[in-house]
């Protein structure tokens, strides 16, 4: 038993060290080298190479070489879970940690992303292209509709938020209607190429299936983002606490729809409360790593841009932000939509790793997990969120389950006692979160050097 505790601890430390190394190599800057009279900057090449190497290190561990596999299925499961949790928690940190909007709706968007992506690939592998066609054209058309309505209403000042919401909703519904009609029209043409579940056709295997999987995750993310746009538009105009309650309500609504997905919603394949089975397990380490890195890079770049600073300014002082020419309502909505997009992507990756979706996994009580993680890691710290996501999964699902499982079969339930106690302790010792404001390597905002001025000693 002692050995397994030690081993689990080592795993956590190795994972954190791995992350540190990853962000370090992603942020390495080297001096430009002069080759043939031309200055060549190798920084970006080294950063990309570092990411590729980091990917292959884990990939090697997951590969079975001559009967030996360093990371077993249990470990790889933990890794995939940690990757999805990172995406969801980063999105929530953008909404709550950086923009200051207390949201409990993240888990709902995660669930929407999971079910939407799963439905696309499930139908695809069962000889039905309508999932991809309808959702794909749907999100694109709805995006166009939202953009058009936005263009149209931008000239109208002080428009009541519910009026503009109605217009956006109308536009999206029209888009959805067109998409469903298109699906009826187009999918019969594609269906013969898909074959059946047992005898997959040319489009339902190999590279094509990977492409469909990729698209399903992207579309699921955009779908979640568009729902969050429609939901956030009226609800974000509420004050912060009311917004929290409303988003909690959203998560419960999503959960209820999942439980009744085969009765009140027309999706028999989701099987309601019994859970959706038979989702192709397409998430490989490559995809999990790819989507996680994409989310991390996008969020880091966003935060280091002028738009990211406007997100921060809203958290700091809304009235001052407004007086500095920042569209506060628009900025809140932007952060909320991007955060939900990340959650939707995470959901898509999760669904294809686990292969089975049960509404129980999207219950609002479990929905507090990402909130706990970002508080644990430090609000407004990307490094904190990422390390806390990995640490949390490896500690709670890995170490405690393994160690307690050795005591007795019932003992793993004790982890929900041990883990809140850990949280309590941490809050008492370090209320600013495990890592506070620290950022590692790539995630760190470069300090702007002082301008050369003769200003020294001024300010008498």
């Amino acid at each position, binding site marked *: 038993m002692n050995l397994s505790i030690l081993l689990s601890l080592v795993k956590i430390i190795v994972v954190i060290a791995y992350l540190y190394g990853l962000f370090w190599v992603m942020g390495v800057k080297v001096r430009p080298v002069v080759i043939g009279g031309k200055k060549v900057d190798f920084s970006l090449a080294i950063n990309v190479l570092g990411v590729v190497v980091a990917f292959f290190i884990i990939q090697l561990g997951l590969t079975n070489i001559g009967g030996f596999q360093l990371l077993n299925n249990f470990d790889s499961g933990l890794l995939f879970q940690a990757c999805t949790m990172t995406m969801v928690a980063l999105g929530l940190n953008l909404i709550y940690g950086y923009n200051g909007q207390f949201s409990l709706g993240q888990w709902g968007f995660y669930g929407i992303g999971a079910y939407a992506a799963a439905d696309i690939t499930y139908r695809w592998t069962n000889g039905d292209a309508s999932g991809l066609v309808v959702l794909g054209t749907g999100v694109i058309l709805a995006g166009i509709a939202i953009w058009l309505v936005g263009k149209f209403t931008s000239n109208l000042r002080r428009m009541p938020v519910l009026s503009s919401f109605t217009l956006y909703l109308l536009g999206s519904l029209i888009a959805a209607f067109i998409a469903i009609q298109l699906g009826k029209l187009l999918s019969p043409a594609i269906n013969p190429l898909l074959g059946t579940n047992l005898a997959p056709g040319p489009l339902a295997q190999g590279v094509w299936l990977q492409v469909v999987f990729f698209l399903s995750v992207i579309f699921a993310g955009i779908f979640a983002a568009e729902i969050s746009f429609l939901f956030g538009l009226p609800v974000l105009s509420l004050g912060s606490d009311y917004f929290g309650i409303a988003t909690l309500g959203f998560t419960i609504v999503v959960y209820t729809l999942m439980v009744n997905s085969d009765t009140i919603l027309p999706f028999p394949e989701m099987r309601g409360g019994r859970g959706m089975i038979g989702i192709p397990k397409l998430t490989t380490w490559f995809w999990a790593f790819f989507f996680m890195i994409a989310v991390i890079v996008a969020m880091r770049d966003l935060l280091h841009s002028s738009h990211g600073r406007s997100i921060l300014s809203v958290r700091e*002082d809304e009235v001052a932000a407004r007086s500095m*020419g920042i569209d506060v309502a628009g900025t809140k909505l*932007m952060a909320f939509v991007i955060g939900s997009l990340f959650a939707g992507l995470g959901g898509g990756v999760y669904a294809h790793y686990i292969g089975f979706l049960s509404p129980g996994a999207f219950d609002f009580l479990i929905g507090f997990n990402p909130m706990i993680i970002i508080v644990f890691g430090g609000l407004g710290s990307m490094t904190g969120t990422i390390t806390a996501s990995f640490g949390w999964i490896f500690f709670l699902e890995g170490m405690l389950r393994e160690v307690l499982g050795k005591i007795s079969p019932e003992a793993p339930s004790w982890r929900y006692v041990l883990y809140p106690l850990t949280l309590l302790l941490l809050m008492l010792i370090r209320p600013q979160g495990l890592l506070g404001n620290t950022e590692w390597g790539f995630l760190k905002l470069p300090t702007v050097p002082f301008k050369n001025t003769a200003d020294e000693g001024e300010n008498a």
Partner: protein
Amino acid sequence: MNATPEQTPVLEIQGLTKYFGGLRAVNDFNLTLHEGDLAGLIGPNGAGKTTIFNQITGIYLPTKGSIKFYGVDIVGFEPHEITRAGIGRTFQNIRLFSNLTVLDNLRIAFHAQSGYSLFDGIAATPKYQKREKEIIENAQELLDIMKLSRVQNEIAKNLPYGEQRRVEIARALACGPRLLLLDEPAAGMNPKEITQLMELIHFIRDKFKLTVLLIEHQMRLVMGICEHITVIDFGEVIARGTPKEIQNNPKVIEAYLGKGA
């Protein structure tokens, strides 16, 4: 700098009235500012000065009246639209983005002029990199003018009070205003700092070709730099004129010191 009758006034407020429920905070307030004016708005506590500022900047919607900025009626504009149109302001109780650095405070004010899309930011396109560089240069230039270069990487809330005031003015200037509204810029300053502030306000007015309207309780500052003063009490204008005229106006003395003083 004095206005000729043909010029469009920078700011023209007519019949501005604001009720909070049954309480009349401002009643039929008129004010005209011309290019390059340095005007003061004074009055006892609760006279409605900040309410007027909040209506000009769009934080409150006026009950009645019009506010024209360079001939455009800005009543009903969102606050950020008014700032982008060219009205910058500071706050009575300093409202810096207190957990961010001084430089970031200024860079946020440049957001409206950043000129690149969300996509440019996420993909870190050359346009983004070029504009970011320019924003930093512009911000540093402003900090230099305000003698704040030394503290650019300090967290705003850790600065001494006087410097926070200067950061706030610098941040308002970063929005590129043509009209600057200063809400009690000298509050909490010692006499020496007030003298420096007076020089600073004169300097930025000439340097950035601004029109300045300020609310202030420090009579030394108001009488020292304002060319034109409006006095209000209980939401109504009780006197207008040059500092000298105001100082000798019996109504003003009564409002400030009470009847029989």
